[in-house]
């Protein structure tokens, strides 16, 4: 095992050295502006993620959903019997969560709405929405929040979002629609998807906590 480790480390360092000496000439970057212009957006990364490689993104979201279903499935029977260890709740955390929640939500929506003309997009916005939910959960307690955010309904929404995303992919790829509105819609769907998945993971791990 140690031999493998040393070999792997030496290989990595050798790769780094060979790259830095300049054995492989680094090619010029291709001009990405025509790609962005062809899809009618300003952000070339968005044009690649949601345009040229839309199949890739759709199947990535499918992999994400499958992994989240796996997490739910494996943790389904993992209810800690007895009293759950309490989550520390402080007034400072609750007040600051109240203050921060609005700006964080608005920022996530901004990233969704402007993801095609600037930095942003569905995946970061989804992560920010998920961390807003984490903030809420820290402030209010996971049990109270999961009673309010009824999970089976969210789960159904998750699958509906996937269906909508497939539909949108068909519209963009088969009918050849290239409009900024399609990008905003795709960003919104991806953000909802990622946020629900992150919340599901957080909630499942939190309700399966305790000594095993």
């Amino acid at each position, binding site marked *: 095992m140690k031999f493998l480790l040393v070999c792997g480390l030496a290989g*990595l360092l050798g790769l780094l050295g060979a790259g*830095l000496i300049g054995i492989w000439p680094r090619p010029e970057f291709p001009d990405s502006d025509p790609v962005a212009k062809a899809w009618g957006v300003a952000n*070339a*990364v968005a044009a690649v993620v949601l345009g040229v490689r839309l199949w890739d993104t759709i199947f*990535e979201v499918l*992999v*994400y959903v499958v992994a989240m279903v796996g997490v739910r499935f494996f*943790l389904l029977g993992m209810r800690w019997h007895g009293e759950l260890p309490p989550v520390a709740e402080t007034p400072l955390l609750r007040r600051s969560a109240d203050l921060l929640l609005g700006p964080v939500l608005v920022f996530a929506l901004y990233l969704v709405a402007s993801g095609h*003309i600037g930095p942003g997009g569905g995946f970061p916005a989804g992560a920010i929405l998920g961390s807003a939910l984490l903030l809420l959960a820290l402030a209010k307690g996971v049990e109270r929040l999961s009673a309010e955010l009824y999970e089976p309904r969210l789960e159904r929404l998750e699958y509906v979002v996937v269906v909508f995303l497939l539909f949108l992919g068909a519209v963009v790829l088969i009918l050849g629609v290239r409009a900024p509105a399609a990008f905003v819609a795709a960003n919104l769907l991806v953000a909802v998807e990622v946020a629900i998945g992150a919340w599901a993971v957080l909630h499942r791990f939190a309700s399966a906590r305790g000594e095993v």
Partner: protein
Amino acid sequence: MESLSGLSLAVVLAALGLWVMVSRRNLVWKLLGLGVASGGSILFLVALSHRPGVRPPILGLGPGPAADPLPQALVLTAIVIRFATLALALALVILLTEHRHTQDSRRLEEEE
């Protein structure tokens, strides 16, 4: 040579993650090492797609060549998949701990 620091840090992170994955016997530590190693590979791709003097791959952000958007798009995919697979692996570790009462990979192998 330009983005030397980013590439070097990426390789150091990958090596650190690899070291933790091999040398630690606890499964959670192994998963942490996997996370660090994949973070290193992500940083490697991002550092390759950037050079000094290039602008972000967004139209209308000044003159000059734009950074390559393709590695950034790949990295976006990699980050999300990494999150999902790490969550799934941690769930499996919880399940394993519930059934076998250990997270030690060597003891798990010996008990086979």
